[in-house]
């Protein structure tokens, strides 16, 4: 790079309000044009941003030299990419809230689709199903995940540990539908083809949850200072008690955070459940018998195969989507709270 070749000689600077003025003008133009003509707003916004950027670049280049101009252009590009990344998020949330609000009522949360055609009905069977299926998955994956992380951090040396680490990574990359197929194949081998049960879905979700829990628990165990373990050993406490009564309690906040994030990740999974849990319109609380509905599958099928007229079905789908997002956001929010309250600061004071 020829930095030395180009000095920054100019004394004049683009005033600090300069770029903002250009952007403001561009914004106004975009708004006006989108109202006046029928050109696409997004297209106008993109063109407007590019033109504004070019204007700032040329202005800067004239006053400040090409190096600074490039720097300004880069700043604009990077900032725009951030804005562009957030636009879908905002649009999605707004859409889900607006469209989901229509059926976000008491009926939705207290009724199932049993004997319902067209209007009315609700998703209580899907909500119950989500809780049961995800709950069963958590019951299976939490002990396995935490113990594996303990093994890798506190015991593992040599080939077995290396193999386990590698396979945890591989398992983390399994597409969710493949996890569903595995669970189906496993049960179908013993119970015959065409089997659909809630517990099969739980097994598929557990396969997805375990690597997440292992990794996050491993990370938090790494952060627990070794001096705590040494203090415990020096008191004559055996290794397993040290882990269970000193290390794990110290790491508890981080472990809980990781578990909640894993649950948030799988609560919205649809694909593995499509191939394992089947469709049902009424409430089923037994994961070991009969099909079970889940919120995301509910939303999918309401949208995909609505009746005639489609509006009530679509409305239910959006309401289910809204419920799902709320659940996920609550889990994320609580996980964050837990990690702030019990996180690193507590350990590393």
């Amino acid at each position, binding site marked *: 790079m020829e930095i030395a070749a180009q000095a920054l000689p100019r004394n004049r600077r683009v005033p600090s309000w300069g770029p903002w003025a250009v952007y403001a003008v561009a914004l106004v133009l975009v708004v006006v044009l989108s109202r006046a003509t029928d050109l*696409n707003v997004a297209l106008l916004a993109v063109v407007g941003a590019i033109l504004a950027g070019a204007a700032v670049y040329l202005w800067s280049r004239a006053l400040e030299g090409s190096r*600074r101009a490039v720097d300004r252009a880069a700043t604009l590009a990077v900032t725009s990419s951030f804005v562009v990344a957030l636009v879908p998020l905002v649009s999605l949330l707004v859409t*889900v809230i607006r469209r989901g609000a229509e059926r976000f009522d008491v009926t939705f949360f207290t009724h199932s689709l049993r004997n319902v055609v067209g209007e009315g009905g609700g998703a209580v069977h899907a909500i119950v199903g989500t809780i049961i299926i995800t709950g069963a998955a958590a019951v299976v994956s939490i002990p396995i995940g935490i113990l594996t992380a*303990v093994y890798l951090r506190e015991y593992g040396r040599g080939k077995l540990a290396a193999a386990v680490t590698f396979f945890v990574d591989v398992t983390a990359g399994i*597409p969710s539908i493949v*996890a569903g197929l595995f669970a189906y194949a496993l049960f179908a081998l013993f119970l015959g083809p065409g089997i659909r049960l809630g517990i099969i879905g739980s097994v598929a979700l557990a396969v997805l949850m375990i690597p997440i829990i292992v990794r996050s628990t491993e990370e938090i165990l790494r952060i627990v200072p070794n001096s705590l373990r040494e203090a415990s050993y020096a008191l004559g406490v055996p290794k397993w008690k040290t882990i269970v009564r000193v290390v794990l309690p110290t790491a508890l906040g981080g472990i809980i955070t990781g578990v909640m994030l894993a649950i948030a990740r799988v609560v919205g999974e649809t694909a593995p459940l499509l191939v394992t849990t089947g469709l049902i319109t009424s409430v089923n609380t037994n994961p070991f018998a009969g099909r079970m509905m889940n919120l995301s599958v509910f*939303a999918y099928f309401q949208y995909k195969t609505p009746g005639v007229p489609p509006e009530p079905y679509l409305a239910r789908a959006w309401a289910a989507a809204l419920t*799902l997002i709320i659940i996920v*956001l609550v889990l994320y929010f609580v996980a964050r709270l837990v990690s702030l309250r019990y996180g690193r600061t507590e350990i590393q004071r």
Partner: protein
Amino acid sequence: MSARSDSLTNSKVTRPSRAGDRLFAALAAGAGITILAVLAGVALFLIIKSWPALTAPADELPGNQSFLEFVWPLAFGTLLSAGIAILVAVPLAVGVALFITNFAPRKLVPMLSALVDLLAAIPSVIYGLWGIAILGPHSVGLQRWLYEHLDFLPFFKGPASATGRTMLVVGVVLAIMILPIISAIVREVFSQAPRSLREGSLALGATRWEMIRMVVLPFGRPAIISATMLGLGRALGETMAVAIILSVSGIVTFNLISSSNPTTIAANIALNFPESSGIHVNALIASGLVLFGITLVVNIAARAIIGRGVKA
């Protein structure tokens, strides 16, 4: 100080701790072995259930074709959609990561990171609903414009779909879904770019962008590559967004803006599995095995490049 009654070899003291240690260690190792068993099980059961389809003669499979003919268009669609996703997501993700680590005010960084990570929290079925209800229809104008002006390119041969349920839209939605994953990894590495190098170059008079080009980007290159491959792995396996948005006809084509599109392995399974039976089920599972193989290769390559120090 009284003399000790328990000598060092008193078994009352030693035996419980030894047993407890052995039991617990076995339990922990057992959990690790369970994971090995699970993965082996995944491969094993998939192979068992796929075998009939892999070895069946051509006329038994749906569409009267051999398994290879059955799975090839699906694989093509999978790779095409993931390819578009990567092309769109990586530059954006790098830009987002740069913004958060080098341009945004320090105090806002946790909040901004949380916002971007929120993209990853949203379930894929909701992305599908949003894609078909909002993004698709809104992109019709753009796709028509592409058809009218750039149809000499095989990607825009058209005719432009009227509903927006095209491979282009699917690719963009997939890009949005994998962006937070790539961005999180790259962000982590960018923030670890050596301070001394960054401050040193600024002290020599480099502009911020020059500093980024000279120090941060080269430092982060292996991470960008590895994150790209991890994102690719996720895009390859994504099911619901594709299943909901895409209007499928199963043909193999590079045309991104029409309503006749190939589908992906995962979406095909999702769409057809619930109602399938017999050998068709085996064929779908076999295609799942193929998908598993592809994502396995991609994920292993990603780990090989950057090692395990990275969260995904």
